[in-house]
């Protein structure tokens, strides 16, 4: 009894499934016409699984080679198949062309877009249909694809029906068009080309060292020397080369983003590719370009400036560097498999642990864990070096300001990056072994990641800007032939920024679900950042007062830095005001702001550093005319990119969007001029990108035939100008180590105001000891 019931139930279910299978395709295709997108891959498989040669398709009226913009009358017809005179329906078709315009001539045909037509319900009763094709004006070859089905007229699409497909190429006078390239392939190709160019440059560098010994026997030890060196100067150069290389890669990513955004609704990059491009752009620029550039100069200059033979832990230093290229490989792995990380550099949870995120995210996270290790080791190394290896006579308050800035930056990094590391490891475990740190259904908290990330992320942006402060302090003082105004307040301001950095990160989360009282507190603390930053800017301006400003390329970049960084600082004051932040958050106003401080601040600062210290590092002077040309072109085009973005953000352009929407009759969004400005920005971006090659060319040309640099070409005071250019190894004569004298000798050992006040409170037991 029960068994019979089961069988009959199964029979009913099977019957239902069979009916559903017969009915459902019919609903999709007949009689309303066929869509090319649906059939281009599998054909008309709702009629039969495979095309059938019994159906003969012809396409009449097309020329061998078309004349541009001419109109042709085309007839699609077929014979054969189950279709027969007297049937209720005879057949249907879909015609698609890769170019030109196809228009129906009568009611049997309907348009499916500018270059696609299909039959209408009335058209089902015919075996031939007529259309008009207006040839395109580009003169390239055009492909036609026609699908035709011959039906038995029972009103249902089924395997009894037959279909066939015909493809036809109509030649254009200009031959085949260019094939559309996959943006990932474009990017991967550009990265490989950049890598080859770098390798060629390195080989050429080796060739120039000794043209007579250009063979493997000499190259192998030379390469081994570079790859295994623990010398701070060599590692500094490696960092520097890596930083410049990835500045170029990040630039290429930015250019592809700008091509996509040049016009609204562009389809140069698909949305998932766009997402991974901006993710990689951010990650590359911050971790693989800015940080290595800074570390390059820090490695080179900090030991020289404090008169130390090397960093305290040279092998650890080599490890810090060599983690970086391998981390970069991991971060970029996704690009070469077509699945680059697509989470934004912030990698917000829970998206980062969902299935929707690209598989490349796992490698991207793994790469960043290595960068965390690298940065931690660097932090330990520099702090130790500065603490114990300063030359005789150099107290904390006699360290050059660039060294101070590296100290503050590394202290911040050292204290903040563990939080990021913890978050990354949690995400990594979530993605690989299915732990549930960010699985919401298992009680994970999406805000945990935001807190961990921004606790690191905000100090991180100061980590990349504070060393630029150090550079500008050195460059402006030397160029103005003055000692820096308010050395002590400069140090306290940097330290102040370092402290405030840790209590402001909540301003990235004003629109999150974070507690309003916490948001309110961070609004107050964020405003405070303006105070130490203001002190620095005014001190720099006052340094120029009464000076004698010598205009060199590095001076120009330093003055340019003052302009752009101040603008970035001012626009930054709009965000802590929560009422305005709820509008400006995640818009192009934010993009404009942080590019003003990160490009106009960090990058301009380090361009200045390149022109300032390049003679010291290579022993060759850079060409001043090329340098000035670089400054003028880059400064103007840079402002052309980022200045209009402020307005775009205010009127409603959101960041991390692969397209934008111009106001239509129905809904207001961006005004029409927004499209013009985006095109302007894209053009400026390309000009800025290429203008930086002037600097690269300048460096390469000068390396070969630049003027020989003296030990102190600009008249600076710190120890790096004491050794020859380039410095020998060891940098200083250790039988006669450098000793810092102090022009303030008469007051150097006197207590400061605070000390005097303390002294008044104290009753010294032994007067002799206190006076020392």
């Amino acid at each position: 009894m029960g068994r019979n019931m089961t069988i009959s139930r199964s029979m009913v279910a099977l019957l239902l499934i069979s009916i559903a299978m017969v009915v459902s395709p019919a609903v999709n295709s007949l009689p309303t016409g066929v869509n090319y997108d649906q059939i281009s891959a599998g054909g008309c498989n709702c009629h039969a699984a495979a095309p059938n040669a019994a159906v003969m398709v012809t396409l009449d009226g097309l020329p061998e080679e078309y004349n541009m913009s001419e109109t042709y009358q085309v007839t699609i017809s077929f014979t054969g198949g189950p279709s027969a005179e007297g049937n209720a329906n005879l057949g249907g078709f879909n015609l698609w062309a890769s170019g030109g315009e196809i228009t129906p001539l009568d009611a049997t045909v309907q348009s499916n877009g500018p270059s696609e037509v299909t039959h209408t319900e009335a058209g089902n009763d015919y075996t031939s249909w007529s259309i008009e094709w207006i040839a395109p004006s580009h003169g390239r070859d055009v492909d036609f694809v026609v699908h035709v089905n011959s039906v038995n007229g029972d009103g249902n699409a089924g395997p009894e029906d037959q279909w066939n497909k015909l493809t036809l190429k109509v030649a254009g006078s200009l031959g085949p068009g260019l094939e559309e390239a996959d943006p990932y392939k474009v990017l991967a190709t550009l990265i490989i080309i950049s890598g080859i160019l770098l390798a060629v440059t390195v080989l050429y560098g080796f060739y120039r060292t000794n043209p007579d010994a250009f063979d493997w026997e000499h190259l192998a030890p030379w390469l081994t020397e570079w790859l295994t060196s623990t010398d701070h100067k060599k590692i500094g150069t490696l960092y520097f080369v890596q930083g410049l290389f990835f500045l170029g890669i990040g630039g290429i990513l930015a250019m592809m983003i700008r091509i996509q955004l040049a016009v609204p609704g562009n389809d140069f990059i698909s949305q998932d590719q766009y997402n991974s491009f901006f993710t990689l752009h951010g990650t590359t620029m911050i971790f693989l370009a800015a940080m290595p550039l800074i570390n390059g100069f820090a490695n080179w200059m900090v030991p020289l400036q404090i008169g130390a033979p090397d960093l305290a832990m040279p092998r650890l230093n080599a490890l810090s560097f060599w983690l970086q290229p391998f981390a970069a490989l991991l971060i970029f792995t996704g690009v070469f498999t077509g699945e680059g990380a697509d989470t934004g550099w912030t990698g917000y949870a829970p998206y980062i642990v969902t299935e929707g995120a690209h598989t490349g995210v796992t490698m991207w996270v793994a790469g960043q864990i290595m960068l965390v290790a690298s940065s931690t080791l660097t932090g330990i190394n520099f702090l130790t070096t500065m603490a114990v290896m300063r030359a005789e006579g150099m107290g904390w308050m006699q360290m050059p300001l660039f060294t101070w800035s590296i100290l503050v930056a590394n202290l911040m990094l050292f204290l903040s990056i563990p939080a990021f590391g913890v978050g990354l490891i949690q995400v990594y475990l979530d993605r690989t072994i299915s732990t549930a740190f960010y699985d919401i259904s298992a009680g994970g908290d999406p805000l945990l990641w935001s807190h961990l990330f921004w606790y690191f992320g905000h100090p991180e942006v100061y980590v990349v800007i504070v060393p630029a402060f150090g550079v500008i302090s050195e460059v402006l003082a030397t160029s103005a032939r003055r000692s820096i105004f308010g050395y002590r307040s400069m140090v306290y301001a940097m330290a102040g920024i370092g402290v405030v950095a840790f209590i402001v990160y909540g301003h990235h989360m004003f629109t999150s679900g974070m507690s309003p009282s916490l948001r309110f507190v961070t609004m107050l603390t964020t405003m405070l950042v303006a105070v130490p930053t203001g002190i620095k800017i005014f001190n720099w301006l006052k340094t120029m007062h009464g000076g004698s400003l010598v205009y060199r390329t590095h001076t120009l970049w330093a003055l340019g830095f003052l302009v752009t960084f101040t603008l970035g600082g001012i626009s930054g004051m709009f965000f802590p005001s929560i009422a305005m932040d709820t509008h400006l958050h995640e818009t192009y106003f934010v993009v404009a702001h942080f590019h003003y401080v990160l490009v106009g601040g960090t990058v301009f600062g380090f361009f200045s550093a390149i022109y300032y210290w390049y003679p010291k590092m290579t022993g060759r002077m850079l060409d001043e005319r090329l340098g000035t040309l670089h400054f003028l072109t880059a400064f103007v085009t840079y402002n052309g990119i980022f200045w209009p973005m402020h307005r775009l953000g205010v009127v409603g352009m959101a960041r991390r969007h692969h397209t934008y929407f111009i106001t239509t009759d129905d809904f207001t969004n961006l005004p029409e001029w927004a499209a013009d400005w985006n095109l302007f920005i894209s053009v400026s971006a390309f000009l800025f990108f290429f203008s930086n090659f002037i600097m690269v060319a300048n460096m390469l040309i000068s390396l070969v035939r630049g003027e020989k640099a003296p030990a102190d070409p600009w008249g600076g005071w710190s120890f790096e100008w004491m050794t020859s250019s380039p410095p020998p190894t060891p940098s200083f004569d250790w039988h006669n180590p450098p000793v810092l004298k102090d022009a303030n000798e008469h007051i150097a050992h006197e207590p400061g105001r605070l000390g005097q006040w303390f002294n008044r409170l104290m009753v010294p037991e032994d007067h002799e000891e206190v006076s020392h």
Partner: protein
Amino acid sequence: MSLITPLYDSLWNEYLVWSLLVALFTFGWLYHHSFFYRSEDGENPNVDDLEVGVFPVHYDDLKLELAWTIAPFMLIVYLTYISWAPLDNIWSSPNGGSFGDECDYFNNESSDLYFDDDDGLKGAYKANCYHTIEITAKQWVWSFDCGTLEAELCESGFTEADGRAVPHLSLQAGNAYLAYMTSEDVTHAPWFVSLGVKEDVLPGQTTTVWILAEDVEDFLLLCTEYCGDDHAYMMAGVTIHS
């Protein structure tokens, strides 16, 4: 130049004025010094006798340094003070705050939203009572739930924007709405562009945002917390009718 709504406009304008003043002061100073203190051709005086290996003479002035510590500090204290005002509106309590309590529909209570220029520092929105709606987000579509509100007050459906079907929310001008929001998958954030507000929508949590529909307008609602492939297409049409 105005931003979006009266709540932000006065703040924006005041910030803009202070920005211009600070920029004029700083750039004026920079411009003057860049030219006035440049070295003449061939002349290269070592003003402070910089010498390699010698820490240069101190060049400072405590009074000046204190001046440009205290002046910016006073400015930011002032800017923070004026930024307080709109917070009462943005984070108003749903129980008897700026917008009263939820409207009592049995007594035909109406919301009567208006902007009071005289309230507080920069003016504030006031309402008699407010309506409640629900917003649910998932990749990559918004859904609006008007609950039991009449179609005149709130209606959700679909419309076409930029050639694609998008969700549509229709509200009535002159009403305050409190939206309770949650997400089914990842973090999203609706940006009511013409109203200048956004708030994150998080899975497993409920966040709220005040929608103060004052003027008659049609605008796009965009997603402003990155949520995956079709993030840019995750939009909705918002119509505020009279």
